[in-house]
C-alpha cells in the first residue's frame, strides 16, 4: 500500500522508514527470539529444581537379582519385614530366600527356614550334591499380572510406574489373588485380613530411595532401577548378564530379572 502511495520509488526497494523490510526484521528480531527462548527455558529449568512432586508416569521400575552373588544371609528378608511391618511369624514374607540343593540322584530340595532370616542349617545329603545355591524371591511385579486381573473389587492394581500394589482399605479378603499368583508372593495379613505383598518399597522409591532389601544387600546381588531408561543400574545389569525370568511360559511378563539362574528354579 505504501508503494502505491509513493509512485516515484521503485517497488523492489522499500523505503528506509518502512517498519518491516527483511533486514530490519532480522536485526530487530533476534533479541526478541532470544528472549522468547530464554523465557521458554527458564521456567522449565526452575520447575525441575522445584519439582519435588513425584511423577509416576516418568518411571517404570524393575529389579535385577544376581543368583551368583547371593550368599543367603537373609538380611534382605529381615530388613523387608522391619521396613514394611510384615508380621514376624515365619510364614509371612514380602521377600524370602530359598536354598536349592540338587542331589546327585537328580532330586531337588528347596528350603526356606523362616525365609533365611536366621540363616540355614548345614546342608546334609547322603548322596552328595551336584549343585547348590540361594535364590531370593519376591513379587515379580508382572507387567501382565494375574492377581490384578482376578481381583473382583479393584483393590489390587498396577501403578503407572509399573508397581503392583494392594489397597488394604478396599480389599475384601477373598484370597482370589493369592490363588492366582503363580509365584506365591501374596499372603493374607493376619491382622487386617486383607491381601498383602511386596510393594517394591513404594513409599521409599517415590522419595528417591532404594527398596530396603536392595539397600542392605551386602554383596550387591539385588539391583533396582528403571526398566526403560538406558542409564540405570538395572539397564546395565540387563546388558551384561544373561537374563531369565521365573515361569516365562505363563506370559506374566515379570519385571524381576534373574542372572545366573539355574533351570531347576521354578
Amino acid at each position, binding site marked *: 500500500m505504501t508503494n502505491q502511495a509513493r509512485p516515484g520509488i521503485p517497488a523492489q526497494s522499500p523505503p528506509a522508514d518502512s517498519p518491516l523490510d527483511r533486514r530490519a526484521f532480522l536485526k530487530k528480531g533476534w533479541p526478541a527470539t532470544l528472549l522468547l527462548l530464554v523465557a521458554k527455558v527458564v521456567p522449565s529449568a526452575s520447575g525441575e529444581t522445584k519439582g519435588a512432586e*513425584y511423577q*509416576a508416569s516418568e518411571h517404570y521400575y524393575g529389579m535385577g537379582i544376581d543368583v*551368583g*552373588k*547371593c*550368599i*543367603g*544371609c*537373609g*538380611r534382605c528378608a529381615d*530388613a523387608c519385614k*522391619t*521396613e514394611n511391618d510384615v508380621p514376624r511369624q515365619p510364614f509371612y514374607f514380602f521377600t524370602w530366600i530359598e*536354598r*536349592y*540343593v540338587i542331589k546327585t540322584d537328580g532330586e531337588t530340595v528347596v528350603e526356606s527356614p523362616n525365609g533365611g532370616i*536366621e*540363616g*540355614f542349617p*548345614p*546342608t546334609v545329603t547322603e548322596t552328595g*550334591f551336584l549343585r*547348590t*545355591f*540361594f535364590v531370593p524371591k519376591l513379587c515379580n511385579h508382572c507387567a501382565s499380572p494375574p492377581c490384578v486381573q482376578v481381583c473382583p473389587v*479393584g*483393590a*489390587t*492394581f*498396577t*501403578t*503407572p510406574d509399573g508397581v503392583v*500394589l494392594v*489397597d*488394604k*482399605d*478396599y480389599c475384601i479378603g477373598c484370597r482370589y489373588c493369592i490363588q492366582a499368583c503363580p509365584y506365591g508372593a501374596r499372603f493374607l495379613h493376619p491382622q487386617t485380613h486383607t491381601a498383602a505383598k511386596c*510393594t517394591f518399597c*513404594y*513409599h*521409599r522409591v*517415590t*522419595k528417591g*530411595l*532404594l527398596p*530396603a532389601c536392595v*539397600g*542392605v*544387600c*551386602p*554383596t*550387591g546381588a539385588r539391583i533396582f532401577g528403571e526398566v526403560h531408561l538406558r542409564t540405570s543400574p538395572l539397564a546395565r545389569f540387563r546388558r551384561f548378564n544373561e537374563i531369565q525370568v521365573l515361569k516365562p511360559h505363563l506370559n506374566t511378563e515379570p519385571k524381576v530379572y534373574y542372572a545366573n539362574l539355574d533351570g531347576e528354579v521354578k
Partner: protein
Amino acid sequence: MPQQISRLLILFTLLILGLVVARHYLVPKTFGRLGHYRAAAVDAIVARNVKYVGREACASCHDDIVKIHSLARHQTVACEACHGPGAAHMEAPTEHKPPAPRKRGSCPLCHGYDPSRPTGFPQIDPVAHNPVKPCITCHNPHAPEPPQVPGECSACHGQIARTKAVSHHALLPCTRCHETSQQHKVTPRLSRPTKPRDRAFCGECHAKDARSPKEIPRIDMASHGERYACWQCHYPHDPELR
C-alpha cells in the same frame, strides 16, 4: 403413549436415578482417576514411614567410621545391614541406640561355611574357627582384614579343600598339581596358579608304566579316552573312582 409404557418409563427412570445416586455415594471419590482402583490408596502407601535411612544419613554424624568403612572390604555392606534401621535413632539419637551385634552368632550369617554360597566368598567353619571367641576380638567389623596372610590354600579355597580332604587325592598337596607364586596371596586374580596342561601329567601316576605305588589305579594312556584331557571327565579334587 399407552399407560403401561409410561409406567415402565417412570419405573426405569427411577431405577436409573437410584443407581446414579447409589453410585455417587458408594463408589469411592478417587476411584477411576488413575485406573480401576482408588487413587487415594497410592497416596496412603506413599505416606508410609521410611525406617532404613541409608549410609549418607549415618555419615552426617558418624563420618569417622563411614570414612574407614567406605574404603574397607566391607564397603558394600550397608551400616543398617548389621545395625538395623536408623530412622528412630535419627529422630532421638540418645533414646534409640541401634544394636551393635557383638556376639559370635551374627557374623556367620554371612561368613559361616555353606556350600550354597558362591565359591570364593570368605567363609569359616563356626565350630572349628577359634571357638567361643567373639569375632570382634580379632576382626574389626568396619574394616575387616584376614588376621594374617593366608598360610594355607584352604583359607580361601575351603570348598575345594574340604572336597579333596575326603577324596582319594587327600594326601596330595595342592602344590603337587598347581604351581603357585607368593604373589597369588597378595593379588589372587592377577597371579593365578598353574593347572596341569596335558594327559602326561596325570600319567605320571596313573599310566601303566608309571613309577608309583601299586595301589594307584592304572589306565592305558593310549586307549583310555585318548581324545580328552583327563579333567574333562574326572574331577581331580574328588576322583570318581572309589
